[in-house]
């Protein structure tokens, strides 16, 4: 049994890759899967903060790649879910410290340890770190914001996913591509300040696997080191739960893509 490798990528920075990686990994773990999430952003490590395990990092991804520590020593067990592990990036190294052989060794090791899913949190850009994060992937979650520069970068990434990955090079069939629209604000879409779901799908030529509404809860959750999917009361958390279910093959309708209708009391008193 080999682990399914999912890369979370975008090209552009700041669109929500790490937030998505954390919630996706946590969501898969909540569905009973054994999951590891790896931070490929060597030199700018963030995932450990969002997963709330920054003070428990002893050995990191680079240590394992270089054989200075074992996987077992480096995997940090999540405090909420027993079947979820974090492999942090090194903050003191740069992306040249990653090698293709080293990454392959780590991914193979995780497969042997019986992991069902490995989520690779890609750095921004299309350079070495991003390339290695996507190279071994079976699935890709391309995170895109509803604005033109993010859409263009995602388009570039979709092209790279179709050509610069092991599956593509070996002719083993295309990577499954999932488009995830984040920071979606239906009210701003309605007045034409943001691209709509339809616009983005049309430009990129693929359908979205989820739409995460812009929400204050995301920032609060990140600052507290809790993946937002854990917060079942937040709209963003619910949208991430839907997304994870869809990636696991379930069909769920898109939510939170229309401007919320005001209730009776809000209409009377304003709100």
């Amino acid at each position, binding site marked *: 049994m080999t682990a399914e490798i999912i890369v979370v990528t975008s090209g552009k920075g700041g669109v929500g890759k790490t937030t998505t990686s954390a919630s996706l990994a946590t969501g898969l773990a909540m569905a009973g899967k054994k999951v590891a999430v790896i931070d490929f952003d060597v030199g700018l490590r963030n995932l450990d903060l969002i997963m709330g395990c920054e003070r428990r990092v002893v050995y990191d991804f680079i240590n394992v790649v270089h054989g200075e520590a074992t996987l077992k020593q480096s995997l940090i067990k999540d405090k909420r879910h027993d079947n979820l592990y974090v492999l942090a990036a090194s903050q003191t190294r740069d992306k040249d410290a990653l090698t293709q052989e080293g990454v392959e060794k780590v991914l193979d090791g995780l497969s042997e340890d019986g992991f069902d899913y490995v989520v690779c949190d890609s750095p921004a850009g299309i350079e070495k770190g991003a390339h290695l994060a996507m190279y071994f992937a079976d699935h890709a979650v391309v995170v895109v914001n509803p604005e033109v520069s993010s859409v*263009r*970068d995602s*388009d*570039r990434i*979709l*092209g*790279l996913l*179709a*050509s610069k990955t092991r599956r593509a090079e070996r002719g083993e069939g295309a990577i499954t591509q999932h488009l995830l629209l984040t920071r979606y604000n239906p009210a701003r879409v309605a007045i034409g300040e943001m691209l709509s779901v339809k616009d983005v799908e049309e*430009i*990129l*030529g693929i359908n979205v696997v989820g739409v995460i509404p812009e929400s204050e809860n995301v920032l609060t959750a990140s600052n507290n080191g809790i993946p937002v999917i854990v917060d079942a009361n937040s709209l963003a958390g619910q949208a991430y739960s839907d997304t994870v279910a869809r990636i696991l093959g379930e069909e769920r309708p898109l939510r939170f893509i229309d401007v919320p209708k005001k209730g009776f009391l809000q209409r009377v008193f304003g709100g």
Partner: protein
Amino acid sequence: MSVKMDTTDACDLRFGQVGIACVRVRRVDAAALCDELERRVRAAPQLFSRAAVVLDLSHLLDLPDDGAVDALLEAVRSAGMLPVGLAYGTSETEALAKRMGLPLIAKFRAAYEPASGAAPAPVETAAPRHDAAPPEPIHATPTSGNAPTAQHHAGAVRSGQQIYARDRDLIVTGAIANGAEVIADGNIHVYGSLRGRAMAGAQGDENTRIFVSDFRAELVAIAGHYRVFEQIPDNLEGQSVQCWLEGEKLLIAKL
């Protein structure tokens, strides 16, 4: 200097296609050339200021002497453009380029001498080709009618990707994204949105055309004559259009 062992290659050597402006000299008059180019640079500084250009002398009856060519190059420079080479003409042009220390750039539809033996290889791209039909000799007049078969690309052409159909037509069934490029020596047909660039007649065939079912292009070019679209005209945006050359003019109309 720290001595750092690095096992990766010092560089990659790749062929790619780049758009380059061509200054076709009609008469040997450096002052007039400078004036003319200055006017162009002033009109569209973003497009032409410090733009790399090649000097095309093939329209002159006689090749000017070295001094005159030097003066022309200097005129281009003082107008604010950067001459990077001479366009391919005859073996005399080649000798001239050698004396000037400039590269000779295979120009679109230059009057290649049939006797000059091996024609220069056109600029190669890394774009995948679907089959390996033997390329026609370059100096055969490329007409779209007797091109072997069209090259077909199914699916989207993503930003940053480039497709090149050598010596033939190109048919794309899918969208061409912003920042993507499709190039053909023959005609180009796009059954989908064209949001990127399309260049037909890359070897200089001025009879080639571009057909697009949903027009939103950044740039279209035929045989080196191009139009950029900062703003797509309302009557063309999203329409089925064709582009063709009439003399020097690139025309676009709804189908």
